[in-house]
């Protein structure tokens, strides 16, 4: 499956959940699929989508909160998996788009071909961690996890297939923050 297929599936499933997106192609591609005000597009600070998402989830315990992460981003901040597991926010869903490469910088390989990130998350103490490889598996997996007590982890294996002709996020960082905060705290 291509990343964009995964994003299109996910876009149908999302409601008004604050969603923190990893930097690079993940933010860019999801922006082109569905530009919601609940999307926090991270443009720099590689590795921090997970800690930002954790902060939102802890500050807003009644709101389901999503992290849309990349394998390279997760590997850069593996300690944050432990923080998430230890803080155990019931409302947090951590989704990883795993293409086994740093696609945004030219598809250099990461370590996620050898290292199963969902097993790392499970060992860290996430309540559940699932891996899917086909688009039709996304909906049932997501629906199962969204009803479960968090933190939960969903790894979506994709092939590197970003269409580089897609535009970049057009909002400025401050606009991204304002829209995002407006959608959370009004």
């Amino acid at each position, binding site marked *: 499956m291509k990343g964009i297929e995964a994003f299109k599936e996910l876009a149908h499933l999302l409601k008004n959940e*604050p969603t*923190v997106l990893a930097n690079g192609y993940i933010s860019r591609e999801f922006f082109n699929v569905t530009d919601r005000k609940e999307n*926090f597009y*991270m*443009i*720099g*600070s*590689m*590795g*921090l*989508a*997970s*800690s*930002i*998402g*954790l*902060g*939102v*989830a*802890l*500050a*807003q315990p009644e709101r389901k909160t999503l992290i849309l992460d990349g394998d390279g981003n997760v590997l850069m*901040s593996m*300690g*944050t998996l*432990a*923080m998430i597991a*230890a*803080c155990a926010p019931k409302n947090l869903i951590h989704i990883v788009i795993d293409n086994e490469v740093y696609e945004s910088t030219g598809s250099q390989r990461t370590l996620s071909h050898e290292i199963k990130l969902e097993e790392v998350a499970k060992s860290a103490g996430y309540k559940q961690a699932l891996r899917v490889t086909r688009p039709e598996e996304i909906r049932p997996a997501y629906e199962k996890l969204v009803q479960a007590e968090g933190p939960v982890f969903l790894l979506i294996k994709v092939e590197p297939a970003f269409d580089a002709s897609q535009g970049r996020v057009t909002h400025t*960082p*401050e606009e*991204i*923050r304002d829209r*995002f*905060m407006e959608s*959370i*705290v009004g």
Partner: protein
Amino acid sequence: MLSSKIFVDKLQGHGFDFFTGVPCSLLSGLIAELEADREAGYIPSVREDAGVGLCAGAYMGGKRPVLLMQNSGFGYSLNAFTSLNLIYKIPVLVIMSWRGCGGKDAPEHIIMGDINEQLLKTSGMEYAVLDENNADQVLSTALKKIKDEKVPYTLLVKKGLFDERH
């Protein structure tokens, strides 16, 4: 000396309600107070940059966060400050121990101790040096920066300022 207990009360009195950090012995009294205070709900961060991310998320979720770190952690979090907080305008109060201040410390702290203020300045991070008598004043400046300009504000803490527990 500044009492950790009193300073934590001041922080909470100024509306700070989310606390995380990576320890430094100079901040051990503060962290002990925060850990003992269930209201404060101190969260141990694994790295300072993860703490920056955590505080950024908490801020956007409606909290007023404080991040405690040794200045060595400033090196680790520089990219987080410059490519997250300073461009999105996401404020946080940073309480940073100034190891190596005046060149008297273990070897690993000397260079950062020497460039600490310069590095804050060059990276556009506003700061004040906390002392025994200026706590209220620097906290109201910090709050103003946080509310009006939405930028991080750092308080530098020298050795011996707080009652240390280690």
